[in-house]
C-alpha cells in the first residue's frame, strides 16, 4: 500500500484525477493545474495547519460572548426577557419540550465544544508528528465536518422569530449581539475544519500501523 505522494502522483481535489508530477513539482511556481478541471493541484492543502489554528483561535475567543451575551430578547407588555444560548435550552426544558431541548442542547452546546476540542487535538497531534490512532482521528475529523453546520439551528430559529413576532407592545423579539458572536463561531469552525488537510494525519502514521489493517 502506497500513497499518491510516495509515487510522485497527486489526486485533484475537485475531480479526483490522478496526475503524475515530479517529486519537487508541487509548491513551486508556476502552479500546476489539473488537466481535466483546471484546479490548482496540491499534494497537501497549503498552510493548512496555520489557517486552521487561526480560525479556531478566533472561534474560541468569540465563544465566550456567544454564550454570555443574550442572543435575543422577547418583549411582551413592556417586560423584556433576554435569552442566552443556554437559557433558551432551559426554557424548552421547563416547557417540557424534551426532544426539542435535547436537539438544541446538542446542536448549540455540544457540537461547538466538540468541534473546538477535537480540531485542536487533531492539530496538536499532527504538529507533534504523532502516528497514534490515525484511523480514529480521521473518523473524528469526518464527524466534525458533518455536524458543524447543525449549530446554525439557533440562528435560523431567531430569524423566524424576529420576522414573525412583531405585534408592537403585545410581543416583539429583538436580536442580541450574542447571536452575531455565535454565528461567527459556527462559520469560523466550519472554515477551520475545511482548511485542515486530513492527509496530514496519515503522513506520520507509522508503517506498522499500515500492517495492522
Amino acid at each position: 500500500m502506497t500513497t499518491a505522494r510516495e509515487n510522485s502522483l497527486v489526486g485533484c481535489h475537485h475531480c479526483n484525477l490522478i496526475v503524475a508530477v515530479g517529486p519537487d513539482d508541487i509548491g513551486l511556481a508556476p502552479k500546476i493545474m489539473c488537466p481535466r478541471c483546471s484546479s490548482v493541484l496540491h499534494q497537501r492543502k497549503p498552510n493548512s495547519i496555520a489557517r486552521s489554528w487561526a480560525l479556531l483561535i478566533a472561534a474560541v475567543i468569540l465563544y465566550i460572548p456567544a454564550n454570555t451575551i443574550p442572543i435575543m430578547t422577547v418583549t411582551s407588555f413592556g417586560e423584556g426577557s433576554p435569552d442566552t444560548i443556554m437559557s433558551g435550552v432551559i426554557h424548552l426544558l421547563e416547557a417540557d419540550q424534551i426532544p426539542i431541548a435535547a436537539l438544541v442542547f446538542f446542536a448549540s452546546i455540544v457540537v461547538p465544544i466538540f468541534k473546538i476540542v477535537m480540531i485542536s487535538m487533531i492539530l496538536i497531534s499532527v504538529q507533534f508528528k504523532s502516528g497514534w490512532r490515525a484511523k480514529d482521528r480521521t473518523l473524528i475529523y469526518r464527524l466534525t465536518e458533518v455536524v458543524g453546520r447543525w449549530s446554525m439551528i439557533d440562528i435560523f430559529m431567531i430569524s423566524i422569530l424576529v420576522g414573525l413576532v412583531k405585534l408592537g407592545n403585545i410581543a416583539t423579539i429583538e436580536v442580541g449581539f450574542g447571536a452575531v458572536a455565535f454565528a461567527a463561531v459556527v462559520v469560523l469552525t466550519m472554515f477551520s475544519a475545511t482548511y485542515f488537510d486530513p492527509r496530514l494525519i496519515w503522513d506520520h502514521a507509522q508503517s506498522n500501523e499500515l500492517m495492522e489493517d
Partner: protein
Amino acid sequence: MNIHADLIACHECDLLHQIVALDSGSQANCIRCGAKLYKEIRNSLDRTLSLTVTGLILFLLANFYPLLTFEMQGRSQQNNLISGVLEFFSSGFWGLGILVFLVSIIFPLIYLLGMAYVLVPLRMGHKPWKMISVFKVVDYLRPWAMIEVYMLGIIVAIVKLSDFATITPGIALFSFAGLFVVIAAANASLDPRIVWRSVDIDGEY
C-alpha cells in the same frame, strides 16, 4: 502531463487505489481509513435531474407563499422565508442578515440552478459553456446550502411560540419541507463522475 485514469487517491489519507467496476448501488471505500471513494448509482443523471427540477419548483413556492401565521391576543402576523433577513437588516444586524440570506436562500438557489445548468445539456448529449467552473461552484457550495438545518430551526421556533400563541403553517412551510427532502435525495443520487467523464483531456484520456 501524465495522468492515470485507472487510479484514485483517498482524499482523506492519500492512499492509492485501483478503480474497479462496481455493481449499481454499491460503494468503494478506502481500505485504510474507510473514507468513501466513489459510488455506482443507477440512472444517476436522470434521477438527479428530475430531483433538481422538482427542487426549483419547490424553491419558488417556498419563497413566494407565506411560511407561518402567528396569532396572539386577537392579532395576527404572517412571515415569509425572507422576513427574518429583512428584519435583521432593518435592525442593523447586517452580517447576520447576509449570512442567513446566503445560506438559506441564495446558496440553495445557486446550487439548484447550477445543477440544472450542468445536467440538462448533459442529458441531451452536449456540454454547456463553462460546465466545469459551474460544477465546481455547486460542489463547493454544498455544505453551505443549509436547507435541512433551517427546517429544524423553523420547528424549534414553532415549538417555542406554541406555548403562548397559535401558529398556522403556510404553503411555503410544506414546500420548504419538500425542498429539504428533494435536496437531500439529489445529493445522494448525484455521481460526480458523470460530469468528469464527459471531459476529454487532450487525447491522453
